């Protein structure tokens, strides 16, 4: 690792680490500190391969490591989450203070990890279906169906909420 590599890595961190951290939080539904630990882990892999990957879209590489790490972490957390967030989907929101955003985020967390990753990558990272498929290592068809199902669940919840407040 040359001095220039190190400097370029620092620049990369300055430009991209916050975005990576945010994506990690959204994909695994974890707290900021858990997500930070995961991002550090992913970036350590990036750092190790840095001289080789720095000229070859390191951001995509980093994002892939972060997202895949977040998915497997989310799967490990799943049992806990299901307990934490368990509530029948058709129940109207109990507290009127709970805004639409909170409801949507809660709904997002209840989705299976991979489906949530698809929604985050498509609508938060603004990746195309093809880019999302490449990153997750699945087909474009899978991305389409996962996105559609995920959105349908979120939409149902949203309509439910609007119906309740009307």
């Amino acid at each position, binding site marked *: *690792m040359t*001095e220039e590599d*190190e400097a370029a*890595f*620092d620049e990369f*961190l300055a430009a991209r*680490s*916050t975005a*990576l*951290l*945010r994506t990690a*939080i*959204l994909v695994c539904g974890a707290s*900021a500190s858990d997500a*930070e630990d995961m*991002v*550090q*882990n992913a*970036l*350590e892999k990036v*750092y*190790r391969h840095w001289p080789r990957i720095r000229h070859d879209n390191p951001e995509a590489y980093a994002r892939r490591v972060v997202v895949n790490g977040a998915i497997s972490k989310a799967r490990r957390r799943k049992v806990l989450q299901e307990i934490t967030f368990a509530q029948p989907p058709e129940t109207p929101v109990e507290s009127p203070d709970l805004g*639409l*955003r*909170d409801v*949507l*985020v809660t709904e*997002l967390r209840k989705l299976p990890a991979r489906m949530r990753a698809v*929604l*985050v990558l498509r*609508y*938060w990272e603004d990746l195309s279906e093809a880019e999302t498929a490449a990153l997750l290592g699945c087909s474009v068809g899978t991305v389409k169906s996962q996105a559609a199902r995920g*959105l349908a669940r*979120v*939409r149902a919840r*949203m309509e439910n909420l609007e119906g309740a407040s009307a």
Partner: protein
Amino acid sequence: MNVEEALRDAMAAQVAGVHASPSLGQAVRRRSRRHVVRFRTAGAAVLTAAVAVGVPVALTARPDAAPAGGSLAGTGATGPGVPAASAVSSGDTVATPEGVVPDVVGKSAAEVNALLKEAGYTVRVTKVVTDEAPAGTVFAQMPQPGTAAPAGAAVTITIATTAGPTPSDTEGTQDPQMPQDLGDLGDGRTLGGVHVGYLPEGLEWGKWSGKDGFGKRSYTTSWVEPGLEPGMYSVQMIVYRKDAASVLAKRMQGYAAQGAEPVEAGGRKAYLVSLSEGGDRILDGGTRTIVWTLAPGVGVEVMISPDYAAKLGKAAADRELKKIAAGVALDK
């Protein structure tokens, strides 16, 4: 508002207040070091304490300025308040304020070891098999030159080495404390008078070894998963004999004092603990390590890299460490 927009808005709101910590880079680099083969030069930590604080150290600014080691020899010994006189005597040297890591890439390993110790740093050595730099010279350093680091901080140097035995030292000035290769160890399972009977499936010899890096009469090597890049390890073993073994025995007493419970491995009492980088402290999230006394005057330490441990799973990693330990025997 359609559902895509609502979702986008909700996601943006959820993470709006989140920012990566400015120390992320440091944390990443610290993590990275834990995966690198460890090789600590003997006595460096002790020596650090003896170096006077606040003495400006004259260092050459250019790595190709050869006489650095020589002109440096006296400066560390000058008392506090005495300017580094030798800095004046040579046009090539500059006075580096205490606490800035010098540039050592390209210099010979022995020279750098002395130089860093003079500057008050703890020297950690890793080796990498590479053709990109002459064997025995420093290939990379961490932290980078010019980085502020207090006296006593660890500076890791990566020494280029060849896959085979190190060519005999041409100048005869090699610091006896610097790691030496033991040469071709075949399957790498026999060194320092012990034989490793069991290794986790799929590991192969890391094709390097070192002598005296962890005290006089210590021997180390590592095994890797095929394809792991040079300088990384999956499992590393250190054999301590004679004096080195007594240092290890003291460390084991330290583990007991820190509350570690001994485990049984191959009929012997061993400590299976997570260790800090220096190996003397039990640390949450440290490197899983098993240490035991194999025979009078022979101690053994086996560590598993955090990456490999994560891959196996914690419980399986601990089982493998115990199995490796049980399979180590004196070489007949």
